[in-house]
């Protein structure tokens, strides 16, 4: 039995300890917001927060995250919510498929850097592919969120 803490909820799962977190979340627990894109850590569609850091769930065996706090796109953390609002305001998504991974990565960035520079954003976000090419709006939405946060401080 593997116990996972996802979005503040405990799940006891009868699965192989080697099963990547991605598939435990999607196929066993049934939270489908976290996406499969490549399975090799090359696209970022599968990212979830482990503690506060964006992590490739396709490369992470469940046994490695036992006892850690996992947050998916269905979960809530302050930065994620702010970013989701900005995503809507900038009408970021096209097909939308990569966006959970993009949002989780952006959340992780804002969790670690308060005032990310352009280069910080590029660096943090470059593990995430968007085949529809929404990068420009993603960047604007992140910058906008940072500005909002600074204003309300």
């Amino acid at each position, binding site marked *: 039995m593997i116990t996972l803490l996802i979005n503040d909820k405990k799940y006891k799962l009868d699965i192989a300890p080697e099963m990547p977190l991605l598939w435990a979340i999607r196929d066993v627990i049934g939270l489908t917001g976290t996406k499969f894109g490549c399975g090799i850590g090359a696209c970022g569609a599968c990212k979830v927060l482990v503690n506060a850091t964006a992590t490739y769930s396709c490369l992470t065996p469940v046994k490695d995250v036992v006892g850690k706090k996992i947050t998916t796109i269905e979960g809530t953390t302050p930065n994620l919510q702010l970013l989701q609002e900005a995503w809507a305001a900038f009408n970021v998504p096209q097909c939308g498929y990569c966006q959970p991974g993009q949002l989780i990565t952006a959340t992780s960035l804002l969790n670690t850097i308060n005032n990310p520079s352009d280069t910080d954003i590029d660096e943090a976000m470059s593990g995430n*592919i968007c085949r529809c090419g929404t990068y*420009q709006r993603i960047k604007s939405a992140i910058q906008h969120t940072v500005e909002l946060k600074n204003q309300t401080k």
Partner: protein
Amino acid sequence: MSTNNNISRRSFVKNISLASGGLILACNYSLFSNEMNTTNAVEFNPNLFVQLNTDGSLILIASRSEMGNGVRTSLTSVIADEMEADWNQVSVKQAVGDAKYGDQNTDGSRSILYLYETMRKMGAMTKAMLITAAAKTWQVPESECHAQNHFVIHTGGKKIGFGALAETAKTLEIPTNITYKNPKDFKYIGKSLKSIDVANYANGSAIFGIDKRLPNMKFAAIARCPVTFGTVQSFDKSAAMKIRGVLDVIEIPRIEKPFGPLGGIAVIATSTWAAFEGKKALAITWNYGKNETYDSEAYMVEITKNVHQPAKVEKEIGNVDQAFASANKIIESTFQLPHLAHAPMEVPNAVAWVQGDTCQVWAPTQDPQTAREEVTAYLATTSDKVTLNVTFLGGGFGRKSKPDYIVEAVILSKAIHAPVQVVWTREDDIKHGYYHTVSSQYMKASLDNQGRVTGWLHRFALPSIMSTFTPGIEFAQNWEIATASDIPYEIKNLKVEVGQAPAHVRIGWMRSVINIPHGFAVNVFADELAFAANKDPLEFRLDLIGSDRLEDTKDPIKYDTKRLKNVLKRAAKNANWHQPLPNGHAYGIAVQYSFYTYVASVVEVSMLNDKIKVHNIYTVIDCGTVINSDTVKAQLEGAAIFGMSLAFYGKITAKNGIIEQNSFSDYPLIRMNEIPKVHVDIVESTENPTGVGEPGVPVIAPAIVNAIFKLTGKRYYNLPLSDYNLV
């Protein structure tokens, strides 16, 4: 010249023509669908696309697929606008695949072009009935009533909500005489509406095909022969069966149809992961078959040979040979472009549930009717037994109009008597695609002593999309020739020839299709000619397009050189084309007419340590009437990135018949750290709305190559640029 080049490319699959828009109308005037009547509270269905409930909530049907094209928002906003509905009351429901909706194929950038008038009609019809209902209720003449923001209002000041009118409207005859809004009164059309789905995309609740879950659903992965159309000789499943979660291993046959599954060995499991692991553990011996000899490098040499000698003449105006003989200068170049893969972020996948003689499918598909036909044929049943539910698509780009992956799920569900989800791995997607064609193109032109083009020869060889439909076709076909032969240049002596190019993989259409190779060769070559003539590339191109004219085509939509020149000039103006750039920066320009739409881009490039960087892309689009300006903008921003990906990295190669690339690691795409600023400018127009999703792609690669030439004096004739270590 005929300009039906891009739009009719699928007419070989089904006899679809512009008239299919009329079909929707024809059926809708006579059809009162009960499909949406899921509860008793449901009310007023004036046509297939509209359902008004007594509480005023309005459900509008999207008949085309949502794959990032914004179609669920734009099509329904047209109905809402004509209807005078309040957008906040609208929710959108996705149509199942059914001919009663007319052509549902979301492909060829045609959704708005075909459906704009239809959607207006649906809205106007509904509004007319609501006005009649109100007039009846109040016992006043209809002429004293008008609709506004979800109400019908009487000149005397009375008003009544749409919802309250539903009951009465339901009893009325369908009006035969309807009037449309004056475009200047549009509330939603032409404005910038947010995607109706944006919140669900951002919180992870949007259900894509891969997210569909059913009770007791099994997951499946399939091992397919590495060589196209190879077959299974033998296999050993024992190792796979030992993997935890693997339930069964089943051989499935190839179905020899254009959209037939490739066949192979399927692993059924309790999770996608177990299915993937089981697949890896299979020991399979394949019969590779005759495509085993496919070597894309050798193939390029072969088709290039075919364009370096006279080939099949498809078009000749004037006398090219004579023009060449009396030339002041002759320029000739050869362009080579590789296969490309669509690589939508969501891999091909589908859920099927065959129960007795009925079948339910949930799939991300661009073409639910074709999918439904394929499923019906496989089950040897009638289409009324097959329901094709369209989920959100995590990108399509043409890949998801080919339902081979859907039939796979149906085969497996039928075999194991349970709902099954087939999921392709990324490697499957890259290695078993319907590839964008590979091409070699030879271009030759003559200049007179004023630097004007007097003769133009375009000779190309590429495996045709038609080879997928009629095996054995070895030459490009009509619409694959038209982009070269209907070139918008005023040239007196022009010849287009087509060389032989047999196909060794499945060839399919990908976002902007034949415009990618032709747009590349023509735009780079025109730039080369400008420099040979010692002229500014922009001025040279404007001269080449020549006089203002509407081409005399059989097509209902005429081709307008004035609009083409306008986008070119406007892109140049937006970029400040004639102003000097910072040191080490240069501009390149390209222009393309495709899907009835006019697009030009100016690209600003610099080079540092022998690596190029794209700083700005100025794109101008003239797509006639704009339905949703933000969608147009987004599509053009995306098209710029799509075009950059293929220019920088796009390359699929084969050795011994096996595709060499695997995943995003060796089939890279543009990432955030590489993006330029994309500036989109939309020409305001009252012409018919035309394609938006594809026309922004083909200009990007040639504009980049032209900018690199300006910067370095070196001309790159082949893609991708990563082959030259430039990126």
